[in-house]
């Protein structure tokens, strides 16, 4: 059988919501009757959404696929600035729960037809009257379309309690609007073949509700309940890693700083060793503990070539510490050099002061005493060590306590064991 709709109707309904989200960028979205979370799985990619919540009466069904809403591995590798928290609840849309109030968008895709008419009334009260979201998208089958569906007798699904015509849907929607202060716009997905458009309408009819701004609204509604009710059961909740989390920001920034510090250090060391080879100029060294600054500020407005030179001058600010065996121990990379060299460091930290503050709390980053520079250890190319590792990876020696009691082992005839 040829599919009636391409793409399939359920996907078109989801696309409708996705398009709405793209246009309106609601930060908090709630999906009623989320079932196996398929709509949420698409919405999680729209990072303008900060809070994505699903509610379904059937917890088992939700649990089946809910882990697909978890961050993927790469979300941890490069956390973004956007925040996202995903929560899933088990509960009924006819009951109130304070945690689901104040959303920017509530979607109810192919849900209400599974409720009895009495429950639809309660649904209106809970969604429009109690949750009071800024926008609501409700989709439901349009029974006028049913004659066009081949082989269909009765309702589209055995669990449907009703299927409304366009007029029935409209009257329910308008009633809810007047009662709770919303305006509604009708549309749908699943266009019939040309010519039928006027007579039957969309296969799935959709109402997009928007709350009318009324000054006193929030106050009066908030006062309705003396106490917050929590009737839903939280099944799942996960926070996506985000740079807004200070710990994560510090970690990412710390990694970035160390990477660049290491890079700048090796560039500088190459340069230094080149100079030594060329001119045998004595390198300024200091005894450990003593502080000696050889700061020479560079003049600005230099030509391209001099810019190179400037960098060189700046490098002289690196302090070098000498230990007893005259090999370098650590190099200090000034924060302002880092700040100006690597754009990602500056974007992440925002300001130099902020950078210093964040790094001070990072146990992995070692700062100089005045907090103006990052200290990086020098890797002396240790030949000895290299040689030791040269052979078989795991071989090495360790005075293993070998019991040699059986040293004088008697001659055994292995051949005889046949």
């Amino acid at each position, binding site marked *: 059988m040829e599919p009636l709709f*391409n*793409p399939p109707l359920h996907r078109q309904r989801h696309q409708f919501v996705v398009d709405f989200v793209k246009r309106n960028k609601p930060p908090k979205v709630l999906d009623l009757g989320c079932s196996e979370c398929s709509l949420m799985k698409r919405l999680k*990619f729209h*990072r303008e959404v900060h809070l994505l919540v699903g509610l379904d009466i059937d917890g*088992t069904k939700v649990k089946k696929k809910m*882990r697909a809403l*978890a961050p*993927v*591995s*790469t979300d*941890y*590798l*490069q956390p973004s600035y956007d925040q996202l928290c995903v929560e899933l609840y088990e509960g009924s849309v006819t009951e109130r729960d304070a945690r689901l109030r104040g959303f920017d968008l509530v979607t109810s895709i192919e849900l209400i037809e599974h409720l009895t008419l009495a429950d639809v009334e309660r649904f209106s009260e809970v969604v429009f009257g109690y949750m009071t979201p800024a926008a609501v998208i409700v989709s439901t089958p349009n029974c006028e379309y049913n004659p066009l569906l081949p*082989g*269909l007798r*009765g*309702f589209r*699904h*055995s669990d449907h309690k009703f299927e409304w015509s366009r007029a029935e849907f409209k009257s329910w929607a308008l009633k809810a609007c007047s009662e709770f202060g919303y305006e509604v716009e009708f549309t749908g997905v699943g266009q019939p073949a040309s010519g039928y458009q006027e007579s039957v309408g969309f296969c799935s009819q959709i109402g997009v509700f928007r709350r009318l701004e009324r000054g006193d609204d929030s106050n009066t509604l908030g006062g309705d309940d003396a106490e917050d009710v929590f009737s839903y059961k939280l099944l799942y909740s*996960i926070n996506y*890693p985000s740079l807004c989390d200070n710990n994560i920001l510090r970690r990412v920034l*710390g*990694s*970035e700083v*160390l*990477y660049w510090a*290491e890079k700048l250090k090796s560039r500088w060391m190459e340069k230094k060793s080149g100079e030594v080879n060329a001119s045998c100029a004595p390198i300024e060294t200091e005894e450990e503990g003593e502080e000696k600054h050889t700061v020479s500020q560079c003049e600005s407005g230099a030509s391209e070539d001099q810019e190179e030179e400037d960098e060189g001058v700046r490098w002289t600010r690196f302090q070098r510490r000498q230990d007893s065996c005259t090999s370098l121990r650590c190099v200090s990379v000034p924060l302002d050099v880092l700040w100006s060299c690597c754009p990602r460091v500056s974007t992440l930290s925002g300001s130099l002061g902020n950078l210093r503050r964040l790094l001070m709390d990072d146990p*992995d980053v070692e700062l100089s005493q005045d907090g103006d520079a990052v200290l990086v250890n020098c*890797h002396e190319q240790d*030949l*000895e*060590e*290299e*040689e030791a*590792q*040269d*052979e*078989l*990876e*795991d*071989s*090495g*020696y*360790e*005075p*293993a*306590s*070998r*019991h*040699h*009691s*059986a*040293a004088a*082992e008697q001659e*055994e*005839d*292995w*051949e005889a*064991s*046949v």
Partner: protein
Amino acid sequence: MTGRARARSRGRARGQETAAPGASKAVEPAPAPAAAAAAAELVGRGRQKGAPGPFSAEAVLQISAGFQQVKLGERGGRRRDFQDGGINTRQAMEHVKDSKSGSSGHAIQLTANFFRIISRPQWVLYQYHVDFNPPMESRRLRSALLYHHEEMLGSARSFDGALLFLPNRLQNKETVLHSVTKNGENVQITVTLTNELPPTSPVCIQFYNILFRRILRILDMQQIGRNYYNPKDALNIPQHRLTIWPGYTTAILEYESSIMMCTDVSHKVLRSETVLDFMVNLRQKCGEHRFPEICTKELVGLIVLTKYNNKTYKIDDIAWDHTPNNTFTRGDKEITFRNYYKTQYNLEITDGNQVLLVSHVKRLGPAGAPPPGPAMLIPELCYLTGLTDKMMNDHIIMKDLSSQTRLEPEQRQGRLNRFVSNIQKNPDAQAELDKWGLSFDKELLRLTGRVLPGERIFQGSRSYDPPAADWSREMRGIPVITAPPLNNWLMFYTRRNGNEAQALLQTLNKVAGPLGIRMQRAVMIEYQDQQESLLRALQQNVGQHTQMVVVVLPSNRKDKYDSVKKFLCVDCPVPSQCVISRTISRPQTLMTVATKIALQIACKMGGELWSVEIPLKQLMIVGIDCYHDTTAGKRSIGALVASLNQSMSRWFSKCVLQNKGQEIMDGLKMALSAALKEYLKFNNCLPSRIIVYRDGVGDGQLQTVVNYEIAQIIDCIKSMGQDYSPKLSVVVVKKRISSRFFAHFNGKINNPPPGTVIDTEVTRPEWYDFFIVSQSVRSGSVSPTHYNVLYDTSGLKPDHMQRLTYKLCHMYYNWQGIVRVPAPCQYAHKLAFLVGENIHREHNMHLDNLLFYL
């Protein structure tokens, strides 16, 4: 000392956790350009890719034919049997039917990284067959219809579309249920009990593994490839832009006496940059001109993660002519990659000129359709995992990595205990286990191993008992068994390294005497620091009577090393020794280095350094290993090394280059014949015993060895003569295993000492197998080697088999100590690596009797 060559020969994927090529998991039937439907790779690199394990597709239908045939898929689809289950080789070997344990040595108390699985008494898994009338095509629909009857079935159930598993018995043998589809169609579901599976049945074992994966997901761990990792405990190595995720490998199997979970700490190396970042950096570094070649070499074979799903893909190729603006067919419309990712995942592709990555999808399409063709991936949306070859060879990176990942025995055991206690503490995980009536032991398995007596080393007329797994100190100043006099040899050097070369020559002379190596002065030849002039110098100076060529290389550039080895291994067969000038530039270490070089030179020319007592006569030991070339042509190299004398000090070596789709043993058959003929020449008789140590058998490839290779070996032996029938043993050697053992001394947790043998509890009942810890490590946890005797007509007692194996671990001449595997395996590894990495051709047969590749 050829530091470079040796460093490289450590090879890939030891130490660090890089996803093995075979481990790349299912791949989404993602955008596949219809045009590029290249022939699906059926057999890659001679490996048995889709190993025809014990479970065949049609077996799923024969439900009551016996549960051993049933395959239970996690989510349907094809699964490879990585555990080599269902291969029963022990039953054919009379002498180990009752016991496969040895007896030598003294007992040692150990713990192992195994946890017993405990089930309720009389625990049984009930297997039901589910029939739908009218038949339902969609598996999803079938599950949905069946799960309507939760009150009947209970919440603990596992259904793969045809088979239903329940922990409890339904009231009747046959239950008829009724459901209604969305379309109002009435469906009759018949659930019939077909089997009661005891806890040890293979289906149950598979089931435990699936259940356990569920638990790891409950613990919020991320699956990458086959293992699960914890991104929340990530370790960063910022200077190399690496991130390490700690995780665990787990496998539940039936071991000797019970069902256990073997779990080990595993680390996943990830990179915090996208493939595009990597490409841009690389292009900057190596220039436009060489970029495509270098980029292909670096990237192909690596595993990537994507930004939009949790799947891993292996990069098989780079589509240089594709960009995100190319289109593919989706449904019946053409859509550009750029638009696809925008609409589907809201992902913006910023660089429209990037080339695309190609990954061959091996998984079958929906409903058994052929694979949907290669997936095209966008570099900007992919993150690299694992290390490139270049990083593996960078000892600074490797040092930083191992400092983060190397775990002392105490730490490792601590982590494993914490893992199991985390499961015990998590209420959801416990609920899932309780539902099925299962639980885990809270502590690591305790068992007793044995430490084999130490081996006496014989060196010429002297002998000594090394106090540790190393006798570099003991052998100083004692002449080696034999060393051919070095009368006619050359040393090549560049002008810049003239002093180093002279110093090396002098020191070599100094150290050679006490070692019993007679050495004339070498002819010194200077060459220009260019590949061509080095080659010319070799061509002009190496003659018929040259015994040895030493080349001092100014840097560890691969091309010069390659051309030296190519010329001297293939065109003009002379043993050669390359030394990097830096290695000999420090006077303090020159003596040590020169000693090693002198020994190496001696054995490359056929010298014998030391031996251990081998109590079997007329014995030939054979070692086999292979090398898989991941880039150039995907060829594999098989190497065979066979002993020629009683003291295991002379070896015959052959290698074969084998093309895609060919079994490695086809070529090695010829090599084995040649080895037997050479043995005959050496000893005037053929060996009466042959023991083959086969290394390089991957997970899931055991069946091929059993079914095919053993028969080939027997064939080959038969072809030597009608009445020639030596005793034969075939042993599979495995280094990369997740079993670990910890020894307890005075309340401290240590590595087991060298010579520790484990042949109970954690071995498999259907195999004749054992573990030996032969080497000693300075830091970190030692990893044991697993030996699986697949075929054995020798009648050798298990104890003797174990001790012989341990003795052979003492015989690798490039290391004055005990190694991880029997020497012939290590030799074969070295040879295969040299051929695969440097010379790319079979070596000249005049070198067959020499360890020229050390």
